[in-house]
């Protein structure tokens, strides 16, 4: 998969065998015809991608669902509509990889911050903590078209927790991933005295949703 991503600017590397078929036209920058068994994943991807970027449409051709991305840079200012990104979304939707990578560029930015935080700390997270945190970053990257991540800070606390922090006008919001299993907390530290709370979560999706929307 990594090889595929690195070589993604080469059109011939697109998988054309099996259940997937790649089609291009003059108007559309690229879309994927998906087999019926992929429809569930596809619809889920449409829910995420279609609603956030507004420039993708669900359509059917020859009785099979496919995704169309229209070449309108005004609609997708941050993606530059490059071929790489197009392929990235195709890979994601076709379930060849987790579609949380749909906006891979933003995921890479968040992951870079995570690596920086680890460099500044002597702490080495255990595998479980690392994977939980990476899942948080993947989940966050899904929303990067509608939320600005540039101000997000990623840090390692003195208690060896991995933190994502976002300072908003009302206070600081945290996602806290502890060392042990199930240690996943959302925290809020307001600017007024006594305005703080934390909540334990089990689901990555739920905590990210709370973190972004509160």
């Amino acid at each position, binding site marked *: 998969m990594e090889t595929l991503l690195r070589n993604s600017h080469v059109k011939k590397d697109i998988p054309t065998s099996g259940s997937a078929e790649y089609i291009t036209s003059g108007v559309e920058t690229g879309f994927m015809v998906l087999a019926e068994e992929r429809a569930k994943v596809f619809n889920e991807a449409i829910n995420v991608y279609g609603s956030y970027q507004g420039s993708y449409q669900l359509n059917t051709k020859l009785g099979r669902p496919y995704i169309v991305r229209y070449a309108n840079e005004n609609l997708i200012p941050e993606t530059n509509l490059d071929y790489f990104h197009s392929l990235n979304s195709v890979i994601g939707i076709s379930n060849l990889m987790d579609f949380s990578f749909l906006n891979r560029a933003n995921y890479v930015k968040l992951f870079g911050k995570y690596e920086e935080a680890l460099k*500044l700390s002597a702490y080495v997270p255990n595998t479980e903590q690392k994977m939980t945190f990476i899942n948080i970053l993947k989940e966050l990257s899904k929303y990067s078209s509608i939320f600005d991540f540039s101000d997000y*800070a990623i840090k390692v606390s*003195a208690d060896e927790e991995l933190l994502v922090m976002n300072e908003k006008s009302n206070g600081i919001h945290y996602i806290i991933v502890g060392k042990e299993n199930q240690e996943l907390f959302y925290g809020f530290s307001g600017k007024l005295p006594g305005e*703080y709370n934390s909540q334990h979560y089990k689901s990555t999706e739920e905590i990210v949703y709370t973190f972004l929307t509160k």
Partner: protein
Amino acid sequence: MSFTPPEYLKNDPPTFDELFESGEVIYRRHAIRVKVPLGDYFTYIKTSDFLDGVSVNRSKYCKDPADALWAINGDGSNCSYELKNGEVVYCLITELIGPGNKTGITLYCKHTPFVCNSSHTDLLCQPDLVIADIETKQKVINLKLFLNTIFKTTGIVNNS
């Protein structure tokens, strides 16, 4: 860089003063390891530090908040100080123990003067934190978030 503490900080032999007045302020040095947003000071305090006592200076015996930037070398009796990088944050003692603290953890200050720092005080919590379960960990996170809300920056920074 060595430093001779001012006379008002000397306290030989140390005398304890457990009477904290309502208007008293405590100062703490916050090490800037990385750039952190305002109000993030206590994220970097270990839970075990609260059990042993987080060192602060109390204003009754500390005339200058910047005194908190100096750390004592050795055992605290030789009066050798070192200037630390960081900034000074402060809060009113009444805010620590006031109704705003809904963490489920009681905080209190204990005056623990050194020979060369009469203002040294430990910020402690009670009861002892057993951090084995999720609920207690949530309390600890709340405690840190609470401290983040009440400590404010003095604007005194040493980046040298």
